């Protein structure tokens, strides 16, 4: 099990320097860590599309942004991803918690839990899944993909991988 502090440090070491998002219990400690740090700023967003919008502005002003959210938030920001980020080629890393994975969760998470990866395939946003062994590798690879391809990229984070 990796700590949220190590996870935040890997993101910063990779080169990410702007953080925003909407909380989920799975990334609660990560957001607390990012908020408490003095070397980076975490902007609390009111909604996931506002987070993606702020991140897009930050990118144009020279930052490499990360947006944190629950998979329920993908629905909230889908129009911004498709009619802003994908067509202008405005990149950001989206760390999305995967609630409802394999049907084991509260009812409100089950539909998106079953479909969130297929939803991204449909609109053409690449995605990968974190596991216990690939955190550093995936974060470093994501930075290369985000900055070179200049497109949004989703890394799904399931419960129990970071504490």
């Amino acid at each position, binding site marked *: 099990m990796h700590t949220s502090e190590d996870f935040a440090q890997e993101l910063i070491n990779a080169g990410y320097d*702007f953080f925003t998002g909407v909380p989920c219990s799975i990334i609660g400690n990560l957001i607390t860590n990012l908020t408490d740090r003095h070397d980076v*700023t975490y*902007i*609390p*967003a*009111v*909604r996931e*599309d*506002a*987070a*993606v*919008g*702020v*991140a*897009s*502005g*930050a*990118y*144009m*002003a*020279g*930052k490499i*942004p990360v947006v944190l959210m629950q998979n329920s938030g993908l629905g909230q920001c889908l*129009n*911004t991803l*498709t*009619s*802003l980020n994908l*067509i*202008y*080629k*405005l990149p950001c890393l989206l760390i999305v918690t995967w609630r409802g994975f394999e049907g084991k969760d509260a009812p409100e998470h089950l539909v998106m839990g079953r479909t969130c990866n297929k939803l991204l395939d449909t609109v053409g946003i690449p995605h990968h899944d974190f596991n216990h062994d690939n955190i550093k590798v995936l974060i470093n690879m994501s930075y290369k993909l985000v900055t070179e391809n200049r497109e949004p990229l989703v890394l799904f984070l399931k419960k129990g991988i970071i504490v």
Partner: protein
Amino acid sequence: MNYREAITTITGLLDDQLVVCANGLISREAFTIRDRPENFYMIGSMGMASSIGLGVALSKPSRKTIILEGDGNLLMNLGSLPMAGSLQPGNLLHIVLDNEVYASTGNQPTISNVIELEEIAKSARYSYVKKVTNNEDLKREMAHTLENGGLSFLLVKIVDTEEQREIGRVTHSPEQIKERFMSAINGKR
């Protein structure tokens, strides 16, 4: 004052300020009246001009950033007001051209005829909030807010009496809009 007059007045007073223009007629009109690399024309993602502008302002505190949007755009992302108010960027001017309709889709009413958007901005801790209804006042308030720092909000009441006419579309591709906006931000100062 119609929105062409308002956009002509606003863009005529600009120097190197960064302007995030909302989708629809506002971007098209701003492009037609005075195209400049410091303009970011949003063509989709309705509601997001205020969030994009906030992200630019926070990340480039040395440059004045202007959000130019309509009442329909603001109402779609009203949460952007308290987000900006909580963060208090010292370089952000938020201009709302309020014609009380969705003009881009044929003048269907919004709800800003009964909702005072400037009061919401005040409540959201914008440090300087003014409502203007004529060109003289707009010129004066533009000069004031461009001169001074802080988090400002101008509500510009628009009455469009002129006949419908053809307005050009933004001819730059989305990627071109982004690339030259980024060069305008990061190439200076």
